Each structure stands twice: as structure tokens, then as C-alpha cells.
């Protein structure tokens, strides 16, 4: 049982760090926000494993859920503005 929990903890730790790295390095805002939401949900699991259910609830509801929704809306606005005024910079990788 404890070996299973240890495996879960290890998997969670690696996934959280990997997702954090992917979120920071992603250039496309919308994809970065989606990765951030996934990161927040896993982080909520980490808090639950640390026996902090209050923080886990807040992270899942506010950090990942509503924070993610707000940032998705912001990313959408940023894209609209960028398309309205094309910048001299070369277009970033496709995938919108």
C-alpha cells in the first residue's frame, strides 16, 4: 500500500514539475493557459496528498478553475488584439 502511495507521490511530483516547465516555456498563450489549468489540478492533488484539503479545494476551485477561466478569456482578448494589429514580428508556431 505504501509503495503504491510512494509511486503516486513520485508520479505527481514529476508531472507537476514537468507541467510547470511546459507552461512556462510554451509560446502560444492559449496552450500555456490550458497547461496551467492541468498544472493547477495536479497541484490540488499534491495538496490533498499533503493532507491540506482546504488548500486543495481552494487551488482546484480558484487557482485552476476560475484563474484558468480568467486567463483563457485574457488569452482570447490578446489574440483578438494581435490579429487586429498585425505586429512586425514573424508569426509564432501554428496551433490556435
Amino acid at each position, binding site marked *: 500500500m505504501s509503495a503504491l502511495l510512494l509511486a503516486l507521490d513520485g508520479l505527481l511530483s514529476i508531472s507537476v514539475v514537468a507541467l510547470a516547465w511546459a507552461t512556462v516555456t510554451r509560446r502560444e498563450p492559449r496552450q500555456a493557459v490550458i497547461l496551467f489549468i492541468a498544472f493547477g489540478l495536479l497541484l490540488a492533488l499534491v495538496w490533498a496528498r499533503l493532507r491540506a484539503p482546504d488548500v486543495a479545494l481552494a487551488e482546484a476551485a480558484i487557482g485552476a478553475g476560475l484563474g484558468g477561466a*480568467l486567463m483563457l478569456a485574457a488569452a482570447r482578448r490578446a489574440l483578438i488584439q494581435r490579429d487586429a494589429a498585425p505586429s512586425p514580428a514573424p508569426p509564432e508556431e501554428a496551433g490556435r
Partner: protein
Amino acid sequence: MKRREAAITALVLVLSVVLAWAFWNAFSGPTGDRLAELTATRVPESGVTNPVTAVLLNFRAYDTLLELAVLLAAILGIWAVGKASPGFLPAGAVLRALVGLIVPLLIIAGGYMLWVGGHAPGGAFQAGALLGAAGVTLRLAGYPAAGLPPEALLRVTIGLGVLIFTLCGVALMALGYGFLTYPLDLAKWLILVIETAATLSIGATLAAAYLGGRADPTDSGDGVTR
């Protein structure tokens, strides 16, 4: 560009060292009475049995009041920046039926979260987040106002948390207690009143923040694009 990246890297390194030092200190420091034990012994005096709520709404109520003020400042900033973004097109029949199911559930879950915060994980912020999520769901389904009241009432709702919180504190001062120092027999009800007001405020603030600005009174809500 290279210099900027180097500067950012240096700042992050410094921050990491400070964090690592704090982390190390927290575990290797003197093993005296920590705050956790102190809180555990004083929870019966707080009017609630959930230690987290006891800290947030009683022992450190001041911090929570300031958090609500931060949210209030944030929404004022969002309103100052500009108009709300244009809404989405009205949803189809299936999504509308689903929304009609989900939104009441979210509201009930929010009320439950608020009440359960007294003795188990939960509380005003989580409950407010659920109410805000109901607003976001409505907005995504094409309701332009996201279920929020007209602006005059919305302003009152958004300020309600800070207002009630401060009024409670000042009233307690007038009665001869300290600012936000609850007498034991009133503590539970004061916390419940403050948390209810805070929940409504947080829910309205988060939903209003999702609109991305002040609702345009001339916008009829039929999906006008800018």
C-alpha cells in the same frame, strides 16, 4: 534581449536561493511550540471547529479582510480598464438544458461549502468560487450578463464583503472589544454573517472579472462584435 534574459535568470536564481534557505530553516530551526499547536489549543474559543476557518475568520480575520479588499481593488481595476468583451452566441438546446441543471447545482454546492466551512474543509472563498463558476457557465452559454444583477445592485454586492466585515469590526470596537475580536457567544454567528457576505461578494467579483470589464449598458446582448 540576451542581457534581459541574463538579468531574469539571475533574479530567479536569487529567489531560488532565498526560498531554499527559508525551506531549510523551516525544517532545521528550533523545535519549539509552532503555531499549529497553539491554534489547536485555542480552536474551542473561536466559535467554529474547523481550525482553518478559525484562523482565517477569527485569529487572523484581519488578513482575510485585506484579501477581500484586494479582490475589490482588482475588480475596480478591471472595470477601469475598459468595457466587457462581447458575449458568446446563445447556446443550443442541449447545452442550455445542461446549464439549467449545472447552475442550480453550483449554487446549492456553494451554499453547502459555506455552511460546512464551520467544521470541515470549505469556507467563503471556495463557496464564492463555485458561485463565480456558475456565472462563468452562464456567460459561456450565451447569457451576456452572466447572471449578475444590474450595475447599481452589482456594485453593492461586490462591496458587501468588505463592508460587512468592516462594520462588524467597528461595531465590536464600539462595544468595547478589539477590532474583529469576537465575544465567544457571538463568534459563530458573526463568522457566519461575515462569510455569507464574503461569499456573495467573491462570487459576484469573480463572475464580473470574467466579463472582462464594465457591462456596456447600451449593449443589448445580441452578440454585437466590436
